[in-house]
């Protein structure tokens, strides 16, 4: 009687343990998937991506956000890593894939997709033989253009 009871309890405990293990594994798998998705969708970098960084100082970034694309000829090649304020100017760090060379006289300008679209950084490659070293500075930068202000200048400019 006593033995049977003990056996029965042990058996039920085993079964319960199996179920808990399965649920646990399922939840862990779920969390991993969720993590993967949020990293992919949020375009985050946890493990240092193979690439390098270039910084640039802009007088106005016009609401450019970290994570925005960096384009050359309309092709997204990099991302805006961070934007901070230094000496009342926008200090932007751009990340580029390894092997993509940015010439020393390349121009980085902040553009808007369409009239009211998102902001991105457009790079027009230069012709210099020197390239910007990883961690270097892109000297030629163009601020975001306030289209509204320009339109108002154009509309009200001429009397």
């Amino acid at each position, binding site marked *: 009687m006593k033995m049977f009871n003990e056996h029965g309890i042990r058996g039920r405990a085993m079964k319960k343990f199996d179920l808990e293990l399965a649920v646990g594994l399922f939840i862990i798998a779920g969390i991993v998937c969720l993590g993967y998705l949020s990293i992919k969708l949020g375009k985050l970098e946890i493990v240092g991506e193979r690439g390098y960084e270039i910084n640039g100082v802009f007088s106005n970034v016009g609401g450019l956000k970290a994570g925005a694309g960096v384009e050359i000829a309309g092709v997204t090649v990099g991302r805006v890593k961070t934007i901070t304020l230094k000496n009342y100017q926008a200090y932007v760090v751009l990340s580029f894939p390894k092997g993509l060379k940015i010439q020393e*006289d390349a*121009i980085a300008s902040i553009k808007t997709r369409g009239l009211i679209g998102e902001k991105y950084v457009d790079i*027009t490659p*230069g*012709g210099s033989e020197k390239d910007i070293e990883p961690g270097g500075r892109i000297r030629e930068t*163009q601020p975001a*253009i306030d289209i509204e202000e320009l339109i108002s200048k154009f509309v009200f400019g001429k009397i």
Partner: protein
Amino acid sequence: MSPAPLIRSIVPVFLIVAMALPVLAADPMDEIKQTTDKMLSIVTNPAFKTPSQTEEREKLIRQAVDERFDWDEMARRSLAIHWAKRTVEERKEFVRLFADLVERTYMKKVEDYSGEKVLYEGETKEGDYASVRVKIVTKRGEDIPVEYRLKKEKEDWFVYDVSIEGVSLVNNYRTQFNSILSQSSYENLVKRLREKVELK
């Protein structure tokens, strides 16, 4: 006055001027100021206002601009990746055409000058590179921000790019040249530039 006191009074003046000159030459903002003042004095000079003097006036303005602008650097930057493929003669010809094009485009603007104020806002220097920020205030009180980018060469500063309202001249031409060159040939680009320059 005997020559001795005269020399005694001139030498210190000369020394001060000689000491001040290199300091002046090393400051990009002063260089921009000098060139601007020179151009404004030509434009506002009533002696050049007559139609017969137009050519002479244009020549003087061009001279003032040529002294301060580094056309080689500007043309090289505008042609960007396509510059390396050109021969020495082609480069020379291109620089000349490019300088002509830019001067022709902006000559009209300069000649339309009617008392706009030029305010010098500040400069930033970083090694051999500098930028000078200028604000042009129109008579209606609107201001147009202009930024000159300069490069130091032999202790003197030369302009290699101008941004007006945040739009860079080099970037503008670079995009245009690139799209022409990717659609057609270099010969076609030169032909188009020549047509534009010859068209008065």
